[in-house]
């Protein structure tokens, strides 16, 4: 797991070949479609695009002095580490009546930007993106905003890309929303 103040994209210096440009647009399209599925709580369809060894992590962020040799994103403590089985269970849970955290559904909107390719191999693409996730709950119009940088690894499968690995580096040391459900990541 990458640590450090911010997950940085190494200068890859890769040339913008036509193939790389095509990869870029394919990957960006994947992220945007995925965000739409999350925003609309189409979670079962979203889960169709996960590899069986997928893991999603949300590390705890700690405010540290500038120049500290300890990482800002904890390497040993997470709000969440979920693998494939747990993700499917969570998707199933949110369909249940008693899943109070998302019944009724939050009004969620991902705005995704700063999409950049990282390392591209024959079957895997590393991609970074920033996001602002707006969440409104309840009936009083109150909302939370969760800002984050993601690093994802997408793997090419027979059905197109699938999410194989993801870190969600939230910008908050104190989670600003009372819970962190799947559609907010």
């Amino acid at each position, binding site marked *: 797991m990458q640590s450090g103040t911010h997950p940085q994209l190494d200068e890859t210096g890769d040339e913008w070949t036509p193939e790389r440009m095509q990869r870029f647009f394919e990957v960006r399209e994947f992220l945007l479609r995925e965000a739409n599925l999350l925003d609309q709580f189409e979670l079962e369809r979203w889960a169709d695009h996960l590899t069986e060894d997928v893991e999603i992590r949300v590390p*705890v962020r700690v405010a540290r002095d500038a120049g500290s040799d300890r990482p800002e994103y904890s390497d040993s*403590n997470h709000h969440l580490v979920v693998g494939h089985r747990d993700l499917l*269970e969570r998707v199933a849970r949110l369909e249940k009546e008693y899943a*109070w955290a998302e019944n009724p559904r939050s009004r969620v909107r991902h705005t995704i930007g700063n999409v950049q390719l990282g390392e591209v191999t024959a079957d895997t693409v590393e991609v970074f993106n920033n996001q602002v996730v707006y969440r409104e709950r309840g009936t009083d119009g109150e909302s939370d905003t969760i800002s984050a940088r993601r690093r994802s690894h997408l793997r090419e499968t027979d059905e197109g890309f699938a999410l194989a690995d993801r870190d969600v580096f939230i910008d908050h040391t104190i989670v600003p929303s009372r819970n962190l459900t799947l559609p907010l990541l």
Partner: protein
Amino acid sequence: MSKAGNRAERAEELIEQTGEALDDGKHPMRIFNDDGIYERELQRIFAKTWNFIGHESELEEPGDYARRYIGEDPYIFVRDEEGELHAFYDSCCHRGAQFVRAEQGNTSHFQCPYHGWTYRNDGELTVVPYEDERYDDLDKEAASLVEAEVETYKGFVFARVVEDGPSLDEYLEEFKWYLDIALDPTEEGLTVVGEPRRVRAEVDWKVPGENFAGDSYHLAHTHGSSFELEYSSSIWERFDAAGPLSQSYSVMTDTHAGEYYLFDEEPIYMDYPEKIEDHMNSDLSERQREMFSKSMFITGTIFPNASIWHGFNPIGGPWASIRLWRPVGPGESEIVSWLLVPKELEDDEEFLERAKAGYQSLSPGGVLEADDTEVWSGISESSNSATAIERDVRADISGGLEESDAVPITDGSHGPGEVIRAGPYLDEVYARTLFNSWHEFMSEQR
């Protein structure tokens, strides 16, 4: 109730009403979210009681420090060069500026960013710029950092704002018997894993504190969706035919309350790897060791707002945790959680994975806590209402007060305090205990 009265009068009336209503197992709902009550809680409870501020193992090296709070007051939890632990009020004696800007770090000195007054990490003022030119005879000793009382129990560090009061040992009462099992069961003791997790929620600190002290009654309803999941169902097969009801116990001392689940048939050691049996703390009595060996989990609340957990649940574990429901405003808390594991197992990756899976079930992203905070936040909104005052709305914690099928354990086969089998489901005496503590501090009877 003075319907139009000012905030102070209303708060005092609410406190008085709580005292009267508790005899009937009730309290005014409004105390969950009221400005006047909140101000008095900070002054009368959080400044007067022992507050959990951190674990020894968080500060390994001299100079390690962490930003912590007692109620809303900012403190610096630090290990000095001699290895002593302190909790300093984060405010320079000169003009009151704060030293600490990070949650955690390491420093030998705290230098004020305003005028440069500099204190050693044991609180002593060492440098005052232009000292000789500005002062005739500055009493630097009198200008040491204001320091909270600090005491440690089994590695868990507590601090108190006021100087006078019972020792931590006295304050924890007979609850220590259970804390020993939950917080110090093995030879090498518990150690923290990583930094604490923090989340802010519209939840009054009293609500989760009371929940963790013994509310199994909410499990089927608040967490119904999680217990229906495939991976959690296997747990229920491990209970007796009679189900979890008959294996749950409440325990109350004068001030604190908790609950635990025991498997009477076979020792399960909270589902720890078998080697844990060979590493039990020899300070534990035979009865304490027996209780640990039968335990699924132990949880409880050290009044006012530190809740403990040790054991496993349907999602994962075993793991140990201490959680603070830190007040940050009327009806609002910051929930801070620490993960701890026996030092003997801190490098056991397979075990850690299970421990973390359990710990995460009670995180903002966890399937259990996500639903808790959703439910609890509704309490905050509804309590802060004219209706709660005008219609004298009361919370009901009378379950089991007159009679219930819960069974008091009086043969001394468990630990000290009042112990009740099936109490977590059938008797709300755990809640009455905590609200009695609340009332005693708020009415300044302590």
